[in-house]
C-alpha cells in the first residue's frame, strides 16, 4: 500500500514515515504544494496525508486542485488548525477525513485503514471504534487478538452501540434496537447479553455509565 505524505515539517514527516513503514506501508514524501499537486496527479496512492500549512500553496488549494483534476485518492487532512470553519472547509473541498495535531500514531493508522476500506467499497459494512471492529456482513467482532462471530442478539447490541461510538444508550434504547415490536423482553436480557460479550472480548469492550446506560469508547 502506497501512501503520499505531504508535510513540510521534517520532524513530523520522518516520524510518520517510520510509523507507516513499520505498519507495512510504502511512503512517498513531498514537502510543498507544487510537488504535492504533481504527485497526486501522477501517482497512484492508496491514501494521501495532507498538511494544510504548506509553503508554496495552501493545503486546501492543493486539495481543490487535485479534485478538479479528477484525482480520487482519499485525502486525510492533517492540521494544527482546529477551528470549526477549517474542518468544514476541508471536508467541503473533498477531504475524506481530518486529524488535528497532535495525534497518536495508532489513530492515524486506524484512520488510514478506514479510508482504504471505504475506498475498497467495504465502508458500509465495517464499524470501527478504537481497537474494536465490527463487520456488519459477517457479524465478526474483532478486538485486539480476539475475533469471534457474534450471535444475532449480541451482534444487534454491538451494532447499536458501534453506530455512534462514544454515545451512551439507555437500557430502553438498547432493548428497542434488539427486540422486535411486541416481543417479550426479560428484565435482565440486556445484562445477560453484555455479560456474554464482555466475557469473550474483555470487560472494557462495553463501558457502563451508572444511571445512564452503556457505550463503546470512541478510541
Amino acid at each position, binding site marked *: 500500500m502506497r501512501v503520499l505524505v505531504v508535510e513540510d515539517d521534517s520532524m513530523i514527516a520522518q516520524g510518520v514515515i517510520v510509523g507507516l513503514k513499520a505498519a507495512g506501508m510504502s511512503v512517498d514524501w513531498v514537502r510543498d504544494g507544487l510537488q504535492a499537486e504533481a504527485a497526486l496527479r501522477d501517482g497512484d496512492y492508496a491514501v494521501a496525508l495532507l498538511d494544510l500549512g504548506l509553503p508554496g500553496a495552501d493545503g486546501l488549494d492543493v486539495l481543490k486542485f487535485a479534485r478538479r483534476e479528477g484525482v480520487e485518492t482519499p485525502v486525510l487532512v492533517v492540521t494544527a488548525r482546529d477551528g470549526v470553519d477549517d474542518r468544514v472547509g476541508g471536508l467541503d473541498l473533498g477531504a475524506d477525513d481530518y486529524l488535528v*495535531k497532535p495525534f497518536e500514531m495508532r489513530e492515524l493508522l486506524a484512520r488510514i485503514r478506514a479510508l482504504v476500506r471505504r475506498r475498497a467499497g467495504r465502508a458500509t459494512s465495517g464499524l470501527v471504534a478504537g481497537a474494536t471492529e465490527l463487520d456488519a456482513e459477517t457479524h465478526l467482532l474483532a478486538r485486539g487478538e480476539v475475533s469471534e462471530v457474534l450471535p444475532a442478539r449480541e451482534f444487534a447490541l454491538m451494532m447499536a452501540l458501534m453506530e455512534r461510538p462514544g454515545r451512551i444508550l439507555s437500557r430502553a434504547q438498547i432493548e428497542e434496537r434488539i427486540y422486535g415490536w411486541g416481543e417479550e423482553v426479560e428484565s435482565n436480557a440486556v445484562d445477560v447479553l453484555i455479560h456474554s460479550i464482555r466475557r469473550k472480548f474483555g470487560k472494557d469492550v462495553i463501558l457502563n455509565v451508572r444511571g445512564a446506560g452503556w457505550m463503546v469508547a470512541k478510541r
Partner: protein
Amino acid sequence: MTPSLRRTALSWMTGLLTVVGLATVTIAYVYVRDQTNEFLDGQLRQIALNAGASPVMANAPPAADHDPEDQFAITIRDGQGRNVHRSAGGPDIPSQPKSGFADVASGGEGWRVYTLKADDREVQVAQQDEVRAEIVESAAIGVAAPIVIVIPLSWIVVGWAMGRMLRRLGALEAEIAARGALAREPIPLEGVPSEIAPLVESMNGLIERLRAAVDAQKRFLADAAHELRTPLAAMQIQVDNLAAEREGLLTDVAPLAAGVKRASALVNQLLSLARLDEPLATGRERIDVGALLLEAVADIAPIADRKGVDVGVDIRAVAISEAVEADARTLLGVLIDNAVRYTPSGGSVDASLSGAVDSAAVEIVDTGPGLPNGQEHRIFDRFFRGRPDGSEGTGLGLAIALRIAERNGFELTVENRADGRTGVRARIVMQATQEQVG
C-alpha cells in the same frame, strides 16, 4: 492629590473679590473723605457768613433722626471779644487769631472750626471731627457693602455651577467605572465640558492602544500555542514509534508519552483560554443541558473505566438553556475531567441535572481528597494546581470553567462536599426552561 476644582475656583474668586473690595473701600474712603470735607468746610463758611447777631429761634421744628452731636456749634463775639451768642451745649472754643479754617481740640474732642473776623465781630462755626468721620465712613461702607455681599453670593453661584459641571464628570466617571475590561467602545463625548473633552479623547486613544496591545498579546498566546502543536505532534509520533518498536517494554516510554500528552493538553487548554478571552463572538443557542451532560460523561467514561472510577449520571429534568454550546461542552468536560482526575481508583463521580421553575442545576460530586486546605480561594487562578504532586492536570481547567461561566451568565461554585465526606462538589446554576422527566 491637588485640591478640588471647586475649592480652587472659590478660593481664587474670594481672594480676588477681597482685594477688589478692599481697594474699592480705600479709594471710596479717600475720595469721599476729600469731597465731604470740602463740602462740609463750604457749609461751615456759608453758615459763618450768614450768622447774624439775632438769637436762634427756639421753636424751629426738629429734623428727622436728629442727633445733637451732629449740630454745628456757633459762637459769635463782639469787637471786644465778649460772647454775643453761643449755641446751647456748644464747646468752648477759644478765639482764633485770624479768619479761616483751623483744627482745634476742646473738651477732649477734635473740632473743625471756621473763623470769620470783622472789625465789629467774630463768628466761629465748629463741627465735631467725629461727625465728619462718620459721614465719610458710612459713605465708604455704602460702596463696600455690595462687594462684601457678592463674596458669599459668588460662593453659592460658582459652587452651584461647578457642581453641575462636576456632576456631568461624575456621570462620566460612572460610565468609565462600569466598563468591562474587554469594552472596546470609546468613551462618549456628549455632555463632557469642552475643557475636559481633550482628556476624554486622549483616554480614548489610550484605551485603543491598550486594546491593541491586549489583542496582540492574545494573538501571540494563540499563535504560540498553535505553533507548539507541530513539534508536539512530532514528539507524539516519535514516542508512538518508539513504543511500537519496543513492544513489551512499554514502561520505558510511558513517562515520556505521559509528558507529551500533558504538554498537548496544556497547549489545547491555552488555546481555548485564548479563545475564551474574545468577547462572545458566536451567538447563544438553545442547548439541551441533559444531553450535553450525558455526552460529557460519555467522553470521560473510557478514562474513568481505565482508572477504576465509577461514573454515574442522574438526569432528573429536561432543561433547555441559552448558551454557547461549545462553551457548555467545555465547561462540563472540565468539571467532570477534574472530578475523575482527582478521584482515586475505587472512588466514584456522580453527575446530576435537576431543574427548578426557571433554572437548572448541574452538580458533579466526587470522592477525591477535596480542595487543598487553605487554598480554596486560589482554585480558579491560572496554573494553580490543587495537587501539584500529581503530574497530570494543567492548572487551567477551572480558570477556563470560570471564564465560561462568566461569559454565559452561569453561576459556578466549586467547594468541598458539605455532607461530611471528602470530595469536591462542583455546581453550575443556569437559567433554563424545563420539563420534569416522566
